[in-house]
């Protein structure tokens, strides 16, 4: 690096002399105009040249970005001002008028104006919207070197080689060009007057002040962004500071130091600093208030020509003889450290503060470090000692120093560091409760000191040590430019060494097992014994890192937050609009400090890396959870899974048949592969499938592939090797049919059919061969026949000697009947779990459903996933196979080669297309339907569902009379007649939910009203059964369906209670009254509840239970309704209120909240434990767990499934 030490260079370019620079206000771009006539557009963050603009003729000295529009302006030695669009990448127009070189061009901050300064001694203001010259300001009598608008007021400042700086008032120009209506008559008059008074006709811009003080030409001048100050730089090597008031302006002071022409100067946008650059190859930083030098950066060979500041962030750029450099004056990384749930950091004001991650609050200032180091140098590091509650701060000022300060106790307010221990050192960190290590790079020593700042031991670190970090208890991590050493303090020696270049920061994981070594472009993860775990490279600079609790490293680059797993897998978590320093990850929050040292919280989506982590750790439970709760489906995740060797998992995410096929082949899932190949039906795929299936030993699939491909010879050989003689014979017939003699010969050979071979030879006139064949097999008659046919005698033949005729071996084991022992497919636990999940089956139920006897335990209730035991060989899993529908019929059994045979009917497809029980029922697949219902709602007693099953099944097919003499053609009735995609077709559902609501439910209500409870009970149960085996057309209808089910269940319960009451012996008065009371509890429709209440009230009154009757009466009145009922209730109420007592004590607490146990018809008070039916939601006392629900009569009480699925 050519610049002097201490300069924080961010970007450097190589080019010819840079004369003009402009920062883009938002993007990380810089425009550089060159002496060679080119204008460059750089991305200084990425270090890339974005564009070049070459239309000027000769050097270009001035450039400026527009603040908001995608525009920039340039002015050059060709006297031209050009306005460009960087979007369309071309010059929009040219403003002509200047008569000599143009030195600077600047946009106005709000008006569509450009100000230019030229060697023709004028300063001109242009309107770039109507492309006109607004004003020419004359007065300088030498080259005008620089002219700038004031950032707020209507002023222009200019510098000239005539040694003067001028301030111009352009308010007249603004008035003239603002809307005329805003001008009163008076002001118009005065405006006119003003015009008259100016003898040069120069009315719009008038010289306000002429600042004289430089004794050579002035090269640059600039306004202060907020204060009435001006700074100028001149060939007299001076930087002058000027102040102005409304009426006058004067010189404040001079900064002396440049020893050649000063070419540029500016005010720091938000600090009290002045920056200047000169031909003496230096950039100087001055204190605005004291006018003393703060810093000097020297370049070896290049003279500086221009300097510019970024309007917002702490960045500057300077143009010199060989290009441009972008730099900043100070480090912006706030010194910080994290201890448990607290972040300690130092603000820009040098205050130590803390931040609580749990409460998300910032503390007041704990400590002020104003006196530490020099005023313009921020502290570099902060180390915290929780035992002593002290901090160790280092600052690079004064060649590096540290300070050890105790934090004040809570609530004692701001304190200056009173008692502090300090010393020289470049790095200082706590290594134990009462020890800290100090590195002094100049002397290359590391001192271990106690809290009294006394050296307890001292040693020489490895050569070139630049930094030290905590290295675990009793250890230091020592950083050299090319390596990291793990240094044991006790033994005073390096115990491990890892070659890593340019490490700048070390970040330990929360459990202290891993550390991330950050260098400019690399992250290296090491174990605590300094073994490299992984490393990754970033093209963009890495800024900071922090560990997730799960062992994922999150790191920030200039523009991204990224993650890396221990195995090196990484990815982007989110983008950043400004640089931040990560300090902590907690859930979806990333805590960080921004460049102004303010704690911030970024929201992230950790799904991706959590999923990948779970994948690496084979934590299926977590993966399932993630898959269920987020939409991870995307090309990237599929590609990732595939790349990482989890094709079977990727398979679960993919819909596209081609990809599915590829994945299925990769993970050896032949079933899926067959399905997909069938869908796509391309010869290439069949070929691949056949190879794969052959490798698996699954010869039935191989056979099908060959059939599809019409590879007769291969097929024949396959039949030979599987010993399937029947099919081989058929192949022979086919060969004959096709007239393919080679094939026929081959098949005959395989079959050992000598006659057929002879016959064939004869057919194709190969009598010699026919004869030989016959002869060698001892078929003398045949030989004779051939001889006769050819008219030859045996003597005329010259026969070779024959060996024994070959006969093909006879198959002993009919291997064709079953597949060879197939290679086990890689169906993982996870895959099975997923299959279950896709059909919305809870894993827990899977076992139980198949009678393995995995007990449904209590924990299954909330989160069935929790049951997805990590235990790889959990027996329950093996049952997963059953879910995979048998699809291969008609494929494997293809028994004629020209693809005849039987296909699978549409009804078979239904079960395949749908996870709904009803579709399985319609397809006639009752057993899978029952499995589904069992898993979804714990259905165990299917007998009551039989009518519904048959009903659904019956509705699915029609009979079309076709050819006479043949049975009718069966066709399948579809739910939506428009659908013809076989992968989507679904069967019609008789008595769908709409029908049930409009018919059965109404009928049930009618029975209720007519007091036909037995009939009603049948109807409502029927509704429940029909709803259980049903489907809805949209997700939104599911809620309606659930409502219908709940309502039907309530009626069923209510009617059952009342029927039970009626069946009672009338002498059991207590129970009678109780049941009457309970009859009013289920959530049936209000008019019907009124009936129940009336009945209960009447019962109570009759038995002198006036208090209870009163409560019923009140409820009736509260419900409202027909006047007759209300009148009745009112009377009862009045009557009861006279004597609110109960004659019979019953278990009915009118004030308590309770529900009715559907088995015992007793109350379940709120708060007590209960079980319920997963389907209809009826409640039971816990002792009824495991019995069949009395309401729906189908499901098992307390068996919690994945919930009824009515919509796919």
């Amino acid at each position, binding site marked *: 690096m050519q610049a002097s030490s201490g300069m924080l260079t961010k970007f450097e370019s190589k080019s010819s002399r840079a004369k003009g620079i402009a920062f883009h206000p938002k993007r990380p771009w810089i425009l550089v105009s060159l002496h060679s006539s080119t204008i460059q557009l750089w991305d200084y963050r990425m270090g890339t040249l974005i564009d070049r603009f070459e239309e000027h003729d000769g050097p270009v000295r001035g450039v400026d970005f527009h603040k908001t529009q995608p525009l920039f302006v340039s002015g050059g030695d060709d006297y031209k001002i050009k306005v460009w669009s960087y979007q369309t990448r071309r010059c929009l127009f040219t403003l002509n008028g200047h008569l000599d070189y143009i030195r600077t061009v600047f946009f106005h901050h709000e008006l569509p104006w450009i100000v230019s300064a030229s060697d023709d001694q004028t300063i001109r203001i242009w309107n770039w919207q109507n492309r006109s010259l607004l004003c020419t300001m004359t007065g300088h009598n030498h080259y005008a070197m620089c002219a700038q608008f004031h950032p707020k007021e209507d002023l222009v400042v200019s510098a000239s080689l005539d040694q003067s700086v001028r301030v111009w008032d352009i308010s007249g120009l603004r008035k003239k060009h603002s809307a005329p209506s805003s001008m009163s008559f008076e002001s118009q008059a005065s405006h006119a007057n003003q015009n008259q008074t100016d003898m040069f006709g120069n009315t719009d811009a008038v010289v306000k002040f002429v600042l004289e003080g430089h004794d050579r030409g002035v090269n640059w001048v600039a306004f202060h962004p907020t204060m009435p100050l001006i700074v100028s730089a001149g060939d007299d090597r001076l930087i002058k500071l000027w102040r102005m008031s409304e009426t006058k302006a004067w010189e404040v002071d001079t900064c002396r130091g440049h020893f050649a022409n000063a070419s540029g100067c500016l005010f720091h946008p938000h600090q009290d600093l002045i920056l200047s650059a000169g031909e003496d190859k230096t950039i100087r930083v001055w204190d605005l208030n004291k006018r003393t030098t703060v810093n000097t950066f020297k370049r070896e060979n290049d003279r500086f020509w221009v300097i510019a500041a970024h309007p917002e962030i702490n960045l500057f750029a300077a143009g010199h003889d060989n290009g441009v450099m972008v730099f900043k004056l100070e480090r912006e990384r706030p010194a910080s450290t994290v201890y448990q749930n607290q972040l300690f950091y130092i603000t820009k004001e040098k205050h130590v503060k803390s931040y609580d991650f749990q409460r998300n609050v910032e503390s007041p200032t704990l400590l002020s470090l104003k006196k530490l180091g020099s005023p313009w140098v921020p502290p570099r590091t902060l180390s915290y000692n929780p035992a002593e509650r002290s901090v160790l701060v280092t600052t690079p000022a004064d060649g590096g120093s540290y300070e050890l300060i105790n934090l004040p106790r809570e609530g004692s307010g701001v304190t200056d560091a009173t008692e502090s221990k300090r010393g020289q050192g470049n790095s200082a960190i706590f290594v134990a409760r009462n020890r800290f290590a100090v590195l002094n790079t100049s002397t290359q020593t590391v001192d271990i000191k106690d809290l009294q700042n006394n050296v307890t031991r001292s040693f020489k670190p490895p050569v070139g040590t630049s930094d030290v970090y905590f290295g675990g208890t009793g250890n230091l991590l020592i950083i050299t430019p090319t390596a990291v050493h793990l240094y044991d303090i006790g033994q005073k020696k390096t115990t491990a060494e890892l070659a890593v270049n340019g490490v700048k920061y070390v970040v330990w994981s929360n459990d202290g097992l891993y550390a991330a070594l950050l260098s400019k472009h690399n992250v290296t993860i090491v174990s605590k014994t300094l073994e490299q775990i992984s490393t990754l490279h970033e093209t963009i600079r890495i800024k900071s890192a922090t560990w997730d609790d799960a062992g994922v490293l999150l790191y920030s680059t200039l523009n991204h937050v990224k993650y890396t797993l221990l195995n090196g897998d990484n990815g982007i978590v989110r983008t950043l609009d400004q640089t931040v320093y990560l300090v902590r990850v907690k859930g979806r929050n990333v805590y960080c400090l921004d460049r102004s040292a303010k704690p911030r919280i970024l929201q992230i989506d950790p799904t991706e890396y959590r999923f990948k982590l779970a994948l690496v750790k084979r934590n299926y439970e977590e993966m399932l959870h993630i898959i269920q709760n987020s939409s991870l489906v995307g090309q990237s995740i599929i590609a990732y899974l595939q790349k990482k060797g989890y094709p079977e998992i990727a398979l679960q995410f993919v819909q596209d048949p081609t990809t599915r096929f590829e994945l299925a082949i990769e993970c050896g899932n032949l079933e899926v592969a067959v399905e997909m190949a069938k869908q796509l039906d391309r010869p290439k795929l069949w070929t691949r499938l056949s190879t794969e299936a052959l490798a698996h030993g699954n010869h039935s699939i191989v056979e099908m592939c060959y059939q599809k491909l019409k590879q007769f010879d291969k097929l024949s050989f396959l039949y030979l090797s599987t010993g399937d003689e029947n099919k081989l014979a058929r192949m022979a017939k086919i060969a004959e049919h096709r007239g393919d003699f080679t094939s026929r010969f081959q098949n005959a050979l395989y079959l050992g059919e000598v006659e057929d071979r002879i016959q064939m030879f004869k057919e194709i006139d190969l009598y010699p061969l026919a004869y030989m064949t016959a002869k060698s097999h001892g078929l003398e008659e045949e030989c004779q026949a051939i001889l006769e046919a050819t008219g030859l005698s045996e003597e005329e033949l010259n026969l070779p000697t024959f060996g024994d005729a070959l006969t093909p071996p006879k198959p002993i084991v009919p291997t064709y009947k079953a597949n060879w022992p197939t290679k086990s497919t890689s169906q993982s636990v996870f895959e099975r779990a997923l299959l279950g999940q896709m059909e919305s089956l809870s894993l827990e139920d899977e076992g139980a459903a198949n009678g393995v006897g995995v007990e449904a335990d209590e924990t299954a209730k909330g989160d069935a996933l929790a049951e997805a035991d990590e235990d790889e060989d959990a027996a329950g899993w093996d049952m997963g196979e059953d879910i995979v529908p048998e699809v291969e019929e008609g494929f494997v059994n293809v028994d004629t080669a020209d693809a005849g045979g039987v296909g*699978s009917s549409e009804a078979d497809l239904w079960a395949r297309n749908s996870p709904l029980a009803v579709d399985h029922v319609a397809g006639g697949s009752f057993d899978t339907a029952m499995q589904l219902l069992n898993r979804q709602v714990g259905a165990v007693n299917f007998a009551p569902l039989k009518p519904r099953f048959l009903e659904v099944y019956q509705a699915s097919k029609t009979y*079309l009379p076709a050819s006479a003499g043949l049975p009718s053609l069966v066709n399948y*009735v579809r739910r939506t007649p428009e659908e013809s995609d076989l992968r989507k077709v679904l069967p019609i559902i008789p008595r769908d939910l709409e029908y049930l609501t409009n018919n059965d439910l109404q009928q049930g209500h009618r029975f209720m009203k007519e007091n036909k409870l037995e009939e009603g009970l049948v109807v409502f149960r029927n509704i429940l059964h029909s709803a259980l085996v049903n489907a809805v057309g949209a997700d939104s209808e599911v809620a309606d369906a659930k409502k219908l089910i709940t309502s039907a269940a309530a009626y069923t319960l209510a009617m059952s209670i009342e029927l039970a009451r009626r069946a009672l012996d009338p002498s059991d008065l207590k129970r009678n009254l109780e049941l009457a009371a309970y009859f009013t509890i289920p959530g049936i429709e209000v008019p019907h509840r009124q009936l129940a209440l009336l009945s209960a009230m009447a019962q109570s009154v009759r038995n002198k239970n006036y208090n209870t009757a009163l409560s019923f009466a009140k409820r009736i009145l509260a419900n409202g309704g027909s006047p007759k009922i209300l009148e009745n209730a009112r009377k009862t109420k009045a009557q009861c209120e006279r004597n609110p007592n109960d004659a019979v004590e019953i278990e009915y607490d009118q004030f308590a909240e309770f529900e009715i146990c559907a088995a015992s018809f007793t109350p379940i008070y709120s708060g007590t434990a209960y079980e319920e039916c997963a389907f209809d939601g009826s409640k039971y006392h816990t002792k009824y767990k495991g019995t069949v629900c009395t309401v729906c009569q189908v499901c098992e009480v307390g068996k919690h499934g994945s919930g009824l699925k009515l919509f796919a």
Partner: protein
Amino acid sequence: MDPYSAEGELTNIHNHFHQGQYQEVVDFDVSSLSPENALPARVLQLRARVALGQAEDVLADVQGEKEPELEAVAALAEQTLGNTDKAVEIAESLAQSTPDNATVQIVGGTVLAAAGKSDEALALLANHQGSLDAVALIVQIHLQNNRNDLALKAVVEARRWAQDSLLVNLAESWVGLRVGGDKYQQAFYVFEELAQAPATSSVRTLVSQAVAELHLGRTEEAQAALEQVLKKEPSYAEAIANLLVLSVITGSKQKDELTSSLAQADPEHPFLTDLNEKSDLFDKAASKYSAKVSA
């Protein structure tokens, strides 16, 4: 000249046959036909009589006849009477001896296909020389085997040389009812055209129309058509079966009544046999489950 083509003598009787107007076939005046068409006409009449349930008479009629055509008809009659084995035996021997005889192909193919030997039937029918009857049979066999793709292929191929003939239209409609979507409507048009013109209307075409309507979701129209059929022929099993399906779909109360009338009309109807089978399947499958605690 093809006697079945539009100008041929047999067009009408042939069309009557395929439109399911069997009585018209039987009543057709064959006396004016040229001698070479007498036999095919007779075969058609015999088949129509079989379809009308007069299989025994037909069997007696063709007893002792040596023409393979009539032997094939005999096989058909045997099959209708339930003597499947005998029928298949005759058909197979005919297939062996005279596989190129069109009637043998069609009638024999029918017998074989009905006996579940669809491969043999297809092999026999594959010998046909441009016979649409054979094509229609092939299509139906493919459909029965759920090979809609092959059926469609056969129809498309036939459409190329046979254009707009009745049988191609019918076969296409059969396939259409499998394919679904727009094809339902097209099939409906074909059936409706046949069923609604008095000259071509028959119970079979009416039922076909009703089935198409049912698939289109027009339950009321389907109901009307089926009731019309039952008015004409109260014991027509297909009509009863489809009406039964319809009543299940619409949730009507006729269900049980229809089931018993179907059992009366055709106790062996696939609807019933299938249902019994499924009923057993249900019981078997349901027996695997039971509550953990019996109440």
